[in-house]
């Protein structure tokens, strides 16, 4: 199968949907060149640096029958539009009693690793997860991002595509044929029986590397990529933990009230899952600090395969494991 980068796969998803549906148009402060070339400046619009207006205009046009894509670019730029996201996009369908639909795709680059410091590096998806009325996902492969973006564009609600800055150049197989991936469906990226690692984005790849290494020692790691954050596929996560009895969560965001906390809660509030859990849950996350610039510092802040390995070893050591 042909290979595309994560970034190319995302743009291809947009382009294919735009060819199919003339109601789709695109707003961002700097247009993406191939989209601009193909669709022209009427459908690929360069906006002033006014993300609040841009986001609200997307909502308004959606309510009038269009299907806008609003690209915030770095997720940190969308905080200026937070009212439009949280008070408007998320609530408007509900508070008007469902009388109009607001099909909207928001795109935002998250994660760190670029040495661009605190105002350009953040993984704040859990801030949005707590807001009722928004769907969102964070893909880890070119295949997944294409399928998820297509689903999101066809969805009749605001959906946020968080996209990992570390993966933009990652290549992977992407079929030529049209396909979609439903929201709310986790992907088991590797099957295993001793421990479950729930990981997001770049850390899916780091978890797979860790799993590879542990396989040499006879330890079998299951790697689950939820892909979709809201809705979250609690069933797949719980089934895996019921099987392995151990849970490590790897996330490039800070732990506090993060995605990782939600997964910990999802696992430990379910009776059947809790009953099989043999060791404490382990969160392998960024340190709770703004992201620093200097490579030495930035590298120290983020989790990686080594910390995932250490986390896995910790949950294997702890609890009534040996007894089981």
């Amino acid at each position, binding site marked *: 199968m042909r290979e595309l980068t994560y970034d190319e796969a995302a743009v291809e998803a947009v382009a294919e949907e735009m060819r199919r549906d003339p109601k789709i148009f695109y707003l961002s402060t700097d247009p993406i060149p191939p989209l601009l070339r193909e669709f022209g400046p009427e459908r690929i619009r360069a906006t002033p640096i006014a993300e609040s207006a841009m986001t*609200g205009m*997307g909502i*308004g046009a959606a309510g*009038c029958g*269009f299907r806008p894509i609003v690209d915030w670019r770095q997720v940190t730029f969308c905080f200026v539009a937070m009212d*439009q996201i949280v008070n408007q996009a998320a609530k408007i369908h509900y508070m*008007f009693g469902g*009388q109009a639909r607001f099909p909207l795709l928001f795109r935002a680059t998250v994660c760190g690793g670029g040495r661009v410091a605190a105002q350009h590096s953040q993984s704040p998806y859990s801030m949005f997860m707590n807001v009722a009325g928004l769907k969102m996902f964070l893909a880890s492969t070119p295949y997944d991002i294409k399928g998820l973006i297509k689903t999101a564009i066809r969805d*009749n609600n605001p959906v946020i595509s968080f996209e990992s800055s570390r993966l933009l150049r990652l290549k992977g197989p992407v079929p030529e044929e049209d396909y979609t991936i439903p929201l709310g469906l986790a992907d088991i990226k590797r099957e295993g029986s001793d421990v479950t690692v729930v990981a997001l984005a770049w850390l899916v790849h780091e978890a797979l590397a860790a799993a590879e290494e542990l396989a040499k020692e006879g330890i079998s790691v299951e790697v689950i990529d939820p892909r979709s954050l809201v809705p979250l596929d609690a069933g797949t996560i719980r089934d895996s933990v019921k099987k392995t009895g151990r849970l490590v969560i790897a996330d490039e965001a800070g732990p506090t009230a993060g995605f990782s906390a939600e997964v910990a809660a999802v696992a430990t509030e379910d009776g059947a899952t809790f009953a099989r859990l043999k060791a404490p849950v382990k969160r392998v996350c960024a340190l709770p600090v703004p992201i620093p610039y200097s490579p030495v510092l930035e590298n120290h802040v983020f989790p990686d395969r080594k910390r995932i390995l250490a986390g896995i070893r910790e949950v294997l050591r702890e609890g009534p494991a040996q007894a089981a």
Partner: protein
Amino acid sequence: MSLSPQGRSAASPATNLPPETQREMLRQMLTIRLFEERASADYRAGKIYGVVHCYIGEEGVAVGVCSALGPQDRIISTHRGHGHCIAKGADLPRMMAELYGRQTGYCKGKGGSMHIADFSIGMLGANGIVAGGIPIVTGAGLAAQMEGKGGVAVSFFGDGASNAGPFHECLNIAASWKLPMVYVCENNLYAAQTAAAATHALPDVAARAAGYGIPGEVVDGNDIFAVHQAAHRAVDRARSGGGPSLIECKTYRWRAHTERKGQPDYREQAEIEAWKGRDPIARLERQLREESALDDAELQSMERQITAAIEAAVAFAEASPFPLPEQATDDVFAA
């Protein structure tokens, strides 16, 4: 033009609107007033919940502007939304049922006073966040431009909202893109307890239009014909591809910022009384009588009809069921 409560502006020039249109404008203003008087009473009686913001005293703006619009045109409102709803043609029973928190309300009881919308008539909703609606309706303007059918979008907002970032962002985009927009600032001289004089660098919000190269006009918001004419010019301009305009309507709210009991109102009583003397409804009545376009009998019949319609709306609301508790989880997402 800058207005004091005494009103330095001359009365607007004789309008060439047909008398039935003028009477319809009166009817709509009266409907807003009587609807809100009832809503306010029912709020105090505990039948309406949360918070209600009354538009009484400002009816000339909503009706003056909306009478210059067609059904394909879209508007957005603020937290003070009843007037805009009624002027755009919303259904009184569904409005009242929404205030009563009933299943049959415009939002199935999910929105209340601050969130009445009727997308089917181009009313994109009241909005509880100051200036929050301006970007959304500017998106409706973009939609109208892309649709290419001559539709126009109108943003209603207060003097308070004109100090918020989205106002600026949207005026600039609308001007750059020549969107078919009309921005209508309802300058009632206060944002909650805070006088506009204390928070605005200049008394006229309309002066800001110059920074974007678009027309900015101050009109007496209590003179419905002046409002209508200014809106008409702006709508024509927008429809014909000339881009956005900013119209500032000087007006005044008669009641406190909200209907909440015990809420302070720091405005001077004399100021309130002076503005009551400039009642847009009484003014139109007077004009119509002077032109012999209205007599006592007609007026009384109009009032009776409106009162009956409001009674019917209340009866509908009262008779409507409350939502079922489980319906709280409906409508989070569209199918």
